[in-house]
Every structure is written in C-alpha cells, then in structure tokens.
C-alpha cells in the first residue's frame, strides 16, 4: 500500500541525486508542485524523462537539477521556446545538459514497453528522419515474420515516476480522468512512484467501469496537493492557465528574471501555495 504522506517527505524518501525520473502528464495533470519540491530539495544530476519538457523541466533545468533530458518535443506549447532548456543546450547554463531526443511515438512506445516488462519497443517509425543519425538509442530491426524494417528504442524503466491525478482514496488507489497521456504506463514502468492528487476521498467513484485507475499496490507514495498541476490543469477541478504559459515566455527569457521568479514563487514557498489555483473552471474566460 502506498504511504499517504506529505510531498516534501515523498520527494525526500524516494528521489535521490542521480536518479532517472519521469514526471509525466500530457499537457494535462503535469505535476508542477512536485517539480517545485524537487527544486527546493536541490536534487542534482537527475536524468529527466518526459515527452514534452514543458515549464516543469524548464524550471528544473534552469535551477540545476538535470544532467540529462530524454524528450520528444521541447517547446512552450502554442507560445514558443523553453528558454531555460535552450540556454542549457545552447550555452551550457547553468550546467551542460545532455539530451536524448526521440519522437512522441517512440516515447509513448518506450513507456508502454516499460510497463509491459519488455526490454525494447518496436514500432514503425523514424522512416527517412535524421534523429537516428544523432541518437544511438534508435536502431532498426527486421520483423522475423514479414522482413519489414521497424524502429526499436529501449524501454523506459525510470527509477521514479511522478504524476498528478484527480483523486486517491484512503487505501491509495488513484483515479485519472480526462486526457490520460502516458501516466498509467509511466507508473507501471518505474521502480517507484509518487502521485500528487487534488484530493483524498473516502470513495473513488470512478464513474465508468473502464476508468483509468492505478491500484494502490502499484504506487509508492501519495501526497494531497490541491492545485498541484497548475499552470497545467486538472480536468473537473481547474482550467489550464494559458495566460501564464504566455507569461512564462517573458519570465524565463532572461536568467535574472527567471531566478527572481523562482526565488519568490518556489524557493521561498511550499506546496500549499498551489491551493490558490484551484479556482473554478473557466473563471478566466468569463
């Protein structure tokens, strides 16, 4: 059974310097509060896996947590660049950053293979593309039945998965609703997992026989962090703050404005500030 604990204790107990950590959430349910906690606890030399590094890894890279990023699309969605990510890749600030770059299809397949306990993922991909020339972890194999050439990448087997979800019950079963991304796969592919949730409830009430539920015995630690996905969103709880994603472009463009924002909003704060973001859906639009 997962330990229901605080976010600070979960990070302290389960994420160590040098770990391979996958913090997932495909635009939806990105575990931003957990990212802030890792920054506060000054974890170093992490290998960070994520399909879309997004603001969460932009912040962690800029604060020096990352040694390597494994990813497939490193932009600010609909806005432009992730300037801290770019600064690390282009100018090695605050430290050199190793990258391992894939396509979305490869990353999704690699998580699924990890969850399935396989050593590799096989798919029809990267045909005519240059990524296989720069990423030695992309190889091609022949189908033993048809002879077709197919792409192969190693399965993702992170030390720790970190996700945010809507609910957990008191036994530690977790419910994910809406755009489910690769969260089920990343938890099942990882040795340990930390799940932050909007709320801990008596009854999960899944709403469908086929709801995405992670049974308690697949999860290592759970922390209740209302608003913990902000400025990403939690379906049914609060909307994505698209205006903040645009604002991040200004904040992160320069090193000093970035560091000032991180000090005021992360280093000098705790996970409780995220609760302020659990405003009703669509307030911004009305």
């Amino acid at each position: 059974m997962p330990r229901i604990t605080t976010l600070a204790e979960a990070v302290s107990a389960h994420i160590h310097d040098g770990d391979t950590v996958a913090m997932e959430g495909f635009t939806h349910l990105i575990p931003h509060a957990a990212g802030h906690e890792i920054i506060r606890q000054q974890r170093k030399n992490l290998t960070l896996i994520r399909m879309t590094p997004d603001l969460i890894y932009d912040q962690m890279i800029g604060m020096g947590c990352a040694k390597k990023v494994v990813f497939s699309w490193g932009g600010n969605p609909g806005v432009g660049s992730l300037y801290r990510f770019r600064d690390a890749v282009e100018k090695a600030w605050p430290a050199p950053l190793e990258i391992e770059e894939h396509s979305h299809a490869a990353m999704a397949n690699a998580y699924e293979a990890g969850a399935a306990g396989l050593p590799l993922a096989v798919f029809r991909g990267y045909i005519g593309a240059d990524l296989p020339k720069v990423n030695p972890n992309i190889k091609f194999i022949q189908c033993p039945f048809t002879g077709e050439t197919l792409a192969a990448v190693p399965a993702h087997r992170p030390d720790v998965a970190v996700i945010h979800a809507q609910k957990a019950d008191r036994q530690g079963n977790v419910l994910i609703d809406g755009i489910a991304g690769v969260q089920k796969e990343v938890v099942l592919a990882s040795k340990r997992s930390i799940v932050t949730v909007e709320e801990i409830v008596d009854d999960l009430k899944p709403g469908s026989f086929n709801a995405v539920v992670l049974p308690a015995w697949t999860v290592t630690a759970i922390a209740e962090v209302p608003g913990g996905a902000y400025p990403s969103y939690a379906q049914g709880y609060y909307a994505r703050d698209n205006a903040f994603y645009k604002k991040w472009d200004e904040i992160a463009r320069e090193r000093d404005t970035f560091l000032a924002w991180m000090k005021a909003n992360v280093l000098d704060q705790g996970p409780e500030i995220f609760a302020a973001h659990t405003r009703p859906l669509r307030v911004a639009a009305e």
Partner: protein
Amino acid sequence: MADAYTSNEMMTIAAARAMRNEDVCFVGIGMPSAASNLARLTHAPDITLIYESGTIATKPDVLPLSIGDSELCETALTTVSVPEMFRYWLQGGRITVGFLGGAQIDKFANLNTTVIGPYDKPKVRLPGGGGAPEIATSCGEIFIIMAQGKRSFVDKLDFITSLGHGEGGDHRARLGLKTKGPTKLVTDLCIFQPDPVTREMIVTSIHPGVTREKIQENTGWPVRFADKVAETPTPTAKELETLRALHARTAAAHGKAA
C-alpha cells in the same frame, strides 16, 4: 465584395479548403489547428479532428493553445491514451490527412523543426519533432501550412525532422512507404503541389495580388510553376467571418499575458 483580408487569413482559408468532409485529420497546434477547425465550421462539418493528446472527433469552440487543452477532451467523442493514439490510430493507418507546419522546409517538402545549425552545436535549438516524424509517414497524405520566407524555405535543411518526398522521385516508395506524403503546401503567397514524377513542390495556385517574383524572392530554391497556374479564390465573407470569430473567441478564452 469581401472585406480586405491579411495574407495570413488567406493562407489559413486556403488550407481549410483543402480539407474534405470525410477526412480523418491528425491536427498539429497553431495554424494547422486554425485551418482544420475553420474547415469544420464551414464546408466540412463532419470532419474528424484528432489531436495527439488522444482526443478523437473533437469539436473545440475555441482554438487550443496546447495540444491537450481541456476544451479538446470535453468536446471529443472519446479520449484515448497517448500510446494508444500513436499505435492504434496513427500507426494503424486510420488517419487520412496529417496537418503539419515547420520552421524550415525544402523543395521536396521535408521539414525541420529540430535545430538550426549543427545538431551538437546548435545556433537555435527548436522544439523538436514531437509527433511529426511518424505523422509524416503514417497518414494517408500530408498538408503543410507555412508562411514563406528565405529563412524558412531553404535549399538545404539543417536537419530532416520529418520526411516529405526525401530526395524526390520514388524515394518514399524505396523506403517502403505506401502513403502519399505531402500533397499540398499552403503558404501566405500560394499553393504548392508535388510534381507527379520528380515530387518537387511546384506552384499550382497563386493567391490574389501576389506575383511570381514575390514568390521567388521568398523561396530559397529556384521555384517551378505548373503549366497552368490558377488564382486562389478570394476568401468569402463567410470564411472570413468564421475565422475571425474563432480567433476572437480564442483570444478571449486564453486571456492576455499579465
């Protein structure tokens, strides 16, 4: 007489017109999303729009800023996981049209969204491929929408993120692909389509008021024009109204950066 319109609006409208009511379209964020939803709101009400976040047959009222806005999930017929999206729906061959943009394109409609300069010492690190490498090869055909300019329409790509017609001719077939690849490239100046034999993208329609010289000035390779070049029909009042209303709803919903 339609109102005055911008070249950007002409581009989006011309791209929207390429979409058919029966298409199942894998939509990228930004201009592909605007064009696809304009098609849905005008001549193609039954078009199936799919975003890589897993939302199938989505009908957003405002354009999503990200590929996974809640609007997409709330208005979708169903939402599947991302591995399922890429494995069953894209790789499985269920998508008729993939709609892409890029930072750089060459005359065979290969796209670069990865890097300007050498990969190991980038001058500009771009976001990367995301879904594009497999969208480009798994969809029945590909539409591309991109504003023209010498920095983006280049003779040689710094990096091939996603395959167009490769080196031209039967290159795709030699790689084992049965899908058509880029069949339409819609820009702010004109429409390119592949030459049936060489697969070089050639101009088949020019937007009203645009000259051949202007197209050449904004293209980094010697542009070829089809024997018969059409003039792209002017945007209709309905197309313009629908597109502007969509953008206005979107701006109101996303808010201004404080």
